[in-house]
């Protein structure tokens, strides 16, 4: 056990139980999984990606590259979870990953032996012989060996939410700079959000052994948190990671609402996605302690000096029985001293520098820490660190230690400044990249901006908090920054210990070593992006937070270009990995998109309808009756009943647009290929509209209710698109036209009654209106009432080819109308039908629908070229006259029937001349829609065929190899039933 006897922000009065790889351990509230593992003496936690080297806990934060575990089990298993960010809870279970058969004895650790082969770019140079082996042998092996943790493969049982927030000042990070910024902005009255990825506010102040305004830093944190929590204009968001900066001062964040408990509480999501729109943002995300490259720098027990100090001070944990620290900078020294002060036995402080600030030396002396200046760690030993070898000049010395804190300097955590294209700039004086240009409205305060001393952080935070609030319109009095002593921040740039021996790692998780950087250099992969891609440096789950700096410094040394000229790779969202589920929120499975029921949905359910998704709508597909063996039998019955007597269907899903104003007629003439200004009041007309490129956009009927009042219908699929198009025409193309549009799709339920007896049915519904052929002829429209006073619009239209009416009533009356129709039609055996029968009826009539209006066909292709008026211009007219549109070879809309009528047509079959090879060159068109016609007793189809109209009676092959079909069909007129259209006019 390495729990220190005192100290730490943990609740020692309470004990939490957890397991790792099945072994039970205990920790305390306030622990992370990492601190609890260390407290239990567990140092070997994972295996690396390529060589399966033993790895431990390297950091104390979200940048952890090594300590990845599978957290939880079953459907809640979370692979690749950083133990350093997991808040310990009672009952937690975690497993190590990427090892077999066990973490202690991992078979693939043999990869280390062949590491001389496995340098950067190895894969690209090999596995090519013999050619067939890649997919069968090599790749499956590589795939199994690669990857990190394993997914549960079960649906995620938890819920997620999304939310929006707006504020004047968003402060990201709650260390010294962040707290100071939040305080000064909040005191001005601005709406402030303080987001902190940790479960505790305070950042480094929880670790550092410093005083603010004369009191311990932790007291400052507690007071600041209390003041902010009490202010109504402040929202504190712990456990919230700002992971992306986006356009419009928008910041995307994940709030981990329930990750710190075993299972989310009732009615609580696991996580919540926030999109925060902030007038100003202050980035106060601090800096990471970065590693130094030296042989064996990856052994469990080696960690950042910052982590060593944090485990000691914040968690009361010694990372080992004893430790050493290896650094090149004052913060590393301070960390060593802080750890010592907290009770860690630090055997030696090894600094590459020859001289250290005297104040630090004095502190070290007072604490009894041995200081080795001008020293380097050149080797380490142990599956779990047992010793290090230190070189001072020509002398080497081996020290037995279980932990080694390393600090190569501070790397500002500036990820978010890059998301809108900002490029970091290198500062020689602090040996670090600092933010270059930042997103609009953002400023950086504290260590992220290269301000490493505590006093600087507090000052910068206070000033920028006030400035941001002022920019957002809140002029508060400038308050003094909290006071703290200047902390030492000296550094000597130092990246790599030059020593032979074990691999010296740059990127721990991806096993990229200094040697790999050398290979990339030799082979010309010298630009940072190429270096990254060739070696995979920086592509691990820490996204290069630990590795990029040293990697590019090594490359800069090899090229002699210098670090500034070498540059750094670009950071992109997310700042840390984000659960995919939270990005979907509520919209998953059946709630992926809204489900739109029709006005008669409940009625159709009662009739036993089978429903089908039609866009967002759910429509009745058919109405099976007991004893029917399949859908076809039901549909055949529905078709027959409609053709012979009467059928009924809800067609409310069609788009319906109300057009009012003196210029509607003119307007419609310009959007339809045919004329509408000449339409008589009380009449409807079928119209086709094109896109400007001359292809058909949509079709439908439009009726004239009054001189200045029309009602248009669109197809279900294009309702929104057509409305948008009409508004475009009115507002952009012809703003001089006085036309007002309203969608009335939802206002009216519309029910089609079709068949020879439909007039008899209608007559029973209307409140006395004359519905005779004379009074309400084909394409006539009546505005009247039905069922004793219900307002109704009756359109005498026919999609089925039969005598038919579409009756529209206010949507709440839809179900009542349907029931009344069924009652009125009972004597005639009225039969409800769905989209399947609708399809059969229209295919029998040769009417086009979505399969033909596929956006690739012109009016001429559809056999409607003659509908186009030559007396006017309309959208699409000019471009529909292009040569290819008039090419006689162009596939034209015709009908098809099987030569052997026992055979079945299938949509999607292509047409070939008889006797030719099935090749793309010989492709002559395709079948768009097919149906079994109960009226004709065989399969029929519609489609497009080259020179189709000239080939009526010809036999062609309908070639459908994907369904194993290849049959002879005869080209025919698309109007299979009642080609003269007499039935609809009776």
């Amino acid at each position, binding site marked *: 056990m390495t729990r220190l006897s005192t100290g730490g922000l943990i609740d020692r009065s309470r004990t939490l139980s957890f397991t790792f790889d099945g072994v039970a351990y205990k920790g305390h509230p306030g622990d992370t999984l990492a601190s609890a593992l260390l407290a239990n003496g567990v140092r070997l936690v994972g295996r690396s*990606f390529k060589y399966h080297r033993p790895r431990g806990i390297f950091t104390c934060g979200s940048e952890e590259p090594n300590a990845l575990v599978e957290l939880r089990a079953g459907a809640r298993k979370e692979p*690749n979870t950083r133990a350093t960010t997991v808040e310990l809870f009672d009952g937690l279970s975690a497993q190590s990953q990427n090892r077999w058969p066990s973490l202690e004895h991992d078979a693939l650790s043999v990869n280390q032996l062949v590491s*001389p082969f496995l340098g950067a770019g*190895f*894969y*690209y140079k090999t596995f*090519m012989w013999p050619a067939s082996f*890649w*997919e069968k042998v090599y*790749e499956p092996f590589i*795939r199994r060996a*690669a990857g*990190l943790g394993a*997914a*549960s*493969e079960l*649906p*995620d049982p938890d819920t997620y939410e999304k939310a929006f927030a707006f504020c004047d000042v968003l402060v990201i990070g709650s260390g010294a700079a962040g707290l100071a910024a939040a305080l000064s902005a909040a005191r001005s009255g601005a709406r402030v959000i303080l987001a902190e990825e940790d479960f505790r506010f305070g950042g480094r102040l929880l670790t550092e052994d410093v005083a603010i305004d004369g009191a311990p830093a932790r007291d400052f944190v507690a007071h600041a948190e209390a003041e902010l929590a009490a202010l109504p204009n402040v929202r504190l968001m712990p456990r919230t990671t700002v992971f992306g900066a986006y356009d419009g001062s928008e910041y*995307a964040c994940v709030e981990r609402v329930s990750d710190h408990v075993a299972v989310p509480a009732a009615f609580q999501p696991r996580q919540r*996605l926030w999109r925060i729109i902030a007038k100003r943002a202050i980035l106060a995300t601090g800096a990471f302690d970065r590693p130094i490259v030296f042989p064996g720098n990856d052994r469990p027990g080696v960690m950042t000096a910052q982590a060593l100090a944090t485990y000691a001070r914040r968690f009361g944990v010694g990372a080992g029985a004893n430790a050493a620290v290896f650094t090149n900078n004052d913060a590393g020294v301070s960390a060593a001293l802080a750890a010592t002060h907290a009770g860690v036995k630090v055997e030696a402080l090894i600094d590459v520098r020859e001289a250290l600030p005297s104040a630090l030396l004095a502190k070290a002396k007072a604490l009894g820490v041995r200081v080795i200046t001008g020293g380097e760690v050149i080797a380490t030993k142990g599956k779990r660190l047992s010793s290090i070898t230190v070189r001072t000049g020509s002398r080497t010395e081996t020290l037995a230690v279980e932990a080694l804190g390393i600090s190569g300097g501070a790397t500002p955590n500036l990820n978010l400044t890059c998301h*809108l294209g900002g490029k970091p700039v290198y500062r020689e004086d602090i040996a670090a990249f600092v933010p270059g240009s930042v997103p609009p409205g953002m400023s950086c305060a504290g260590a992220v901006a290269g301000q490493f001393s505590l006093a600087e952080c507090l000052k910068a935070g206070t000033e920028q908090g006030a400035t941001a609030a002022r920019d957002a319109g809140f002029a508060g009095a400038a308050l003094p920054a909290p006071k703290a002593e200047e902390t030492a921040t000296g550094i000597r740039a130092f990246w790599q210990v030059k020593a032979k021996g074990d691999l010296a790692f740059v990127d721990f998780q991806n096993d990229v070593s200094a040697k790999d950087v*050398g290979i990339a250099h*030799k*082979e*010309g992969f010298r*630009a940072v*992006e190429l270096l990254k891609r*060739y070696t995979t440096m920086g592509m691990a789950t820490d*996204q290069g937070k630990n590795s990029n700096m040293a990697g590019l410094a090594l490359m800069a040394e090899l090229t002699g270009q210098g670090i500034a000229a070498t540059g750094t790779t670009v950071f*992109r969202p*997310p700042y840390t*990995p984000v659960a*995919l589920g939270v*990005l*979907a929120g509520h*919209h998953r*499975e059946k*709630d*992926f*998109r809204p*489900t739109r029921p029709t006005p008669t949905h409940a009625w159709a359910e009662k009739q036993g309808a089978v429903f089908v*998704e039609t866009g967002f709508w759910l429509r009745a597909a058919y109405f099976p009756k007991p004893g029917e063996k399949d859908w076809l039998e039901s549909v055949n019955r529905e078709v027959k009943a409609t053709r012979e007597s009467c059928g009924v269907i809800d067609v409310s899903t069609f788009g319906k647009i109300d057009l009012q104003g003196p210029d509607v007629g003119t307007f419609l003439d310009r959007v339809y290929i045919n004329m509408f200004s000449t339409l008589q009041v009380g009449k409807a007309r079928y119209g086709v509209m094109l896109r*400007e490129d001359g292809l058909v956009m949509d079709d439908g009927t439009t009726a004239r209710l009054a001189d200045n009042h029309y009602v248009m219908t669109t197809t279900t699929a294009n309702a929104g698109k057509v409305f948008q198009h009409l508004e475009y025409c009115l507002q952009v193309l012809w703003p001089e036209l006085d036309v007002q549009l309203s969608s009335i799709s939802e206002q009216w339920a519309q029910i089609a009654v079709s068949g020879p007896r439909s007039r008899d049915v209608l007559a029973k519904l209307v409140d006395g209106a004359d519905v005779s052929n004379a009074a309400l002829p084909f394409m006539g429209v009546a505005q009247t009432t039905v069922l004793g006073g219900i307002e109704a619009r009756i359109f005498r239209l026919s999609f089925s080819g039969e005598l038919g009416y579409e009756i529209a009533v206010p949507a709440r009356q839809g179900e009542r109308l349907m029931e009344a129709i069924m009652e009125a039609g009972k004597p005639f055996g009225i039969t409800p039908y769905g989209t399947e029968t609708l399809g059969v009826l229209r295919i029998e009539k040769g009417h086009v629908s*979505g*399969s033909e209006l*596929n*956006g*690739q066909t012109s009016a001429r292709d559809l056999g409607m070229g003659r509908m186009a008026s030559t007396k006017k211009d309309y959208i699409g007219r000019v471009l529909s006259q*292009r*040569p*290819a549109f008039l090419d006689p070879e162009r596939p034209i809309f015709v009908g098809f029937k099987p030569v052997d009528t026992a055979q079945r047509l*299938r*949509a*999607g079959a*292509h047409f070939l001349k008889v006797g030719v090879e*099935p*090749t*793309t060159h010989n492709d002559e068109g395709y079948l768009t829609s097919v149906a079994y016609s109960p009226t004709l007793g065989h399969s029929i189809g519609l489609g497009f065929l080259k020179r189709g109209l000239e080939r009526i009676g010809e036999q062609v092959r309908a070639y*459908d190899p994907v*369904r194993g079909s290849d049959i002879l069909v005869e080209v025919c007129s698309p109007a299979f039933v009642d080609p003269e259209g007499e039935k609809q006019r009776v």
Partner: protein
Amino acid sequence: MSARYSFLSLISNALNGQTGWKPAWRDAHPKPTYDVIIVGGGGHGLATAYYLAKEHGIRNVAVLEKGHIGSGNAGRNTTIIRSNYLLPGNEPFYEWSMKLWEGLEQDLNYNAMVSQRGIINLIHSDAQRDAYARRGNAMRLAGAGSELLDAETVRKMCPFLNFDNARFPIKGGLMQSRAGTARHDAVVWGYARGADRLGVDIIQNCEVTGFIRDNGAVVGVETTRGAIRAGKVALAVAGSTSRLTRHLDLRMPLESHVLQAFVSEGLKPLIPGVITFGMGHFYVSQSDKGGLVFGGDIDGYNSYAQRGNMPVVEDVLEGGMALMPMIGRLRLLRSWGGLVDMSMDGSPIIDVGPLPGLYLNTGWNYGGFKATPASGWCFAYTIAQDRAHDFNGAFRLDRFRTGNILDEKGVGAQPNLH
């Protein structure tokens, strides 16, 4: 020059501490003149240079790249290769590309990790099945191979898909088993190395800033590294095409848009091949390294910013969670944005002209990666022969004038809908 890779070279380098490797391609300096200048050191430009040298013996070729090779879309895509197109003008071209993929690694002596693990386009309605049957049959006609799967077969292959609680039920799929993925960067490096070995100059950090004109003809380019003349100047710069053609007072049938793509943390093998959702904007595959590589729709507005916004991120993952609710606890590691050259009908342009001495390769929309080999091959042919090959015969610039448009989706002249 980079030596041929073999067992021997690998072993000798293992023994000498990996010190024997040579640059994969020379870092060439521009010469005053070339027979052909290819602007753009992405996959298409480098492949064009390779095939010009290999197939047409034209080796006095420079590839000019404003940054480093592969820094545009070649390194920012989702690595999918497939030949499952619908239209007769498209499908034979993509099938030729697939055939070139199948021999690419032996041809280049470079392992681009071509992995033919298949693609399934999921079907969610009867109408969609018909549309996919039409496509599958078109693929068969072009010799590409395709299979129409029923729902049960899809379930056996991908039991993790949401079959039981789906907003849009899965009713089957169209599969091309030869489709799959390739390691995108390796394709760039393989072509660069191959072209270099045949004598092509690859010139990085050389941005074209203008064109040299002679009597209307294009006879060279101005660059940040000086003027370079050439008998033929070929553009293969994807989303930057309009930026260059502006110097020639040409307006192109193109808009530059942003397409975001995503990769998860590495995982043990989870999904086979490539899967596309038919009712949302989501497609996914798993890389050799274990990351789920996925994407969806373009952001939908003109952009040169190489980054997108949250609504599309959410839209993609809503599709992902609708289709594969097992991915909820897996994590997004990285997202990025590519600058895509959306054409007005969603199909590419590989053509001679429109000015003498100028050759165009553009309009790849969000699908240029899979086309890389055939694009290079056909563009090389077109440059060398001054006419299109049959494979790219439909990819003419004047098709918008004549009406021979190639609109696979049927959405018309609005690039953000393709």
